[in-house]
């Protein structure tokens, strides 16, 4: 008898049909067909076990922060104005609650690292329309808990406005707000305004704002709770460079 047909092997491996006598005889003699059948059976068996494994829960954000801290400290990349001490996280994921004030600092440091990494590319890639005088720009990167496809770019123009272009922001039941934060003291910030549902938005920067100090651009998710302060839920961040 000739070798078993591939379709037939599949049916046998899935136990959908039974061997007939000729097939049993052939399998007893043919190592090749036995091997094929066994491999397909293994695949079917593993396949049956993977149910429920498609959307495994992601590790908590603290795991990424610890990875990033170690990777960043190890690298020699110079960090612009991010104090080293803010990045030095002890080895091992911290299970103790971090002092509340340190959290935004670490997040800001992390964001600054991402922004530094991202800025070079964007500066190179961004088309600069001739009429537009750009005085500063930033690439917005998603914070660890946010969909990695989210992001954006920011250009500060010489006439004192900021063009902000975002994509793939998570849906919100509230609204998205843009802030300029002082990364050296993240309790200090300037609210620039809300983001309407449009790709490219222009927001005025309050005259006299020191963009060297308030250089961390932050997009947050704000609930409709009547509280004008930052909700603490940052989605995107990036540092302005010149």
């Amino acid at each position, binding site marked *: 008898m000739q070798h078993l047909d*591939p*379709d037939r092997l*599949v*049916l046998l*491996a*899935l136990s*959908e049909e039974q061997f007939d006598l000729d097939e049993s005889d052939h399998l007893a003699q043919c190592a090749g067909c036995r091997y094929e059948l066994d*491999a*397909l059976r*293994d*695949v*079917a068996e*593993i*396949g*049956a*076990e*993977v*149910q429920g*494994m*498609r959307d*495994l*829960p*992601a*590790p*908590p954000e*603290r*795991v*990424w922060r*610890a*990875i*990033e801290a*170690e*990777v*960043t400290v*190890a*690298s020699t*990349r110079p960090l612009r104005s991010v104090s080293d001490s803010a990045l030095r996280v002890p080895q*091992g*994921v911290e*299970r103790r609650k971090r002092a509340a004030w340190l959290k935004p600092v670490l997040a800001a440091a992390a964001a600054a*690292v*991402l922004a530094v*990494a*991202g800025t070079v590319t964007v500066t190179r890639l961004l088309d600069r329309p001739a009429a537009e005088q750009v005085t500063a720009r930033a690439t917005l*990167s998603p914070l660890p808990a946010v969909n*990695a496809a989210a992001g954006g770019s920011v250009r500060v123009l010489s006439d004192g406005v900021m063009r902000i272009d975002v994509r793939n922001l998570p849906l919100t039941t509230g609204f998205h707000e843009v802030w300029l934060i002082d990364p050296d003291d993240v309790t200090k910030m300037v609210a620039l305004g809300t983001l309407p549902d449009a790709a490219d938005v222009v927001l005025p920067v309050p005259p006299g704002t020191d963009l060297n100090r308030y250089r961390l651009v932050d997009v947050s998710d704000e609930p409709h709770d009547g509280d004008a302060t930052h909700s603490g839920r940052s989605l995107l961040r990036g540092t302005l460079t010149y």
Partner: protein
Amino acid sequence: MGSDDELAERLRDGDEKALRTAYDRHGSAVLYLAQRMLGNRADAEDVTQVTFVAAWAGRDTFDPQRGTMLGWLLGIARRKAVDRLRSAARDERVTETVRAQLAPPDDKETPERVVDRLVVADELGRLPDEQRRTLELAFFDDLTHPQIAAVTGLPLGTVKSHIRRGMAVLRRRWEVDGAASGSRSAGPSRAL
């Protein structure tokens, strides 16, 4: 979605964002494996962290020709989890617990089997929707080809070829990336 090749290249160039991409794609699988091996969440998170830091440090050793990013990361994670079990074993107080963990009563729960499942699940997720759905009905719901044709409205011949080709794809991936491949392709990246 960028390929593993592209991601490997960005990693080698020292692009930290590529590490983040790898983490977004595969962090959950690494955590799952670690948790299965170690049996506790805090250690599993530590091993996940150590795995990605080691992957970053050893990024030059990832070779897309020899397996996928997921297979590579799971290989590192397995070794890190074993290290963790061994160092725990040195602590006499927990020796008994560890012994129980190293010899799971159910041989379906070996680390190898968990790795096999993770790579097959990943590959299943990469198949086109219709083909994936067909295989899921066969694997999970134990439906026959004619039943699948009836449920999906696809011609029987299409169901047949989806399942045959789909299983061939899963098998290839399993042979390249599954736990058994570790012994076959021992090389520099295994030293991490």
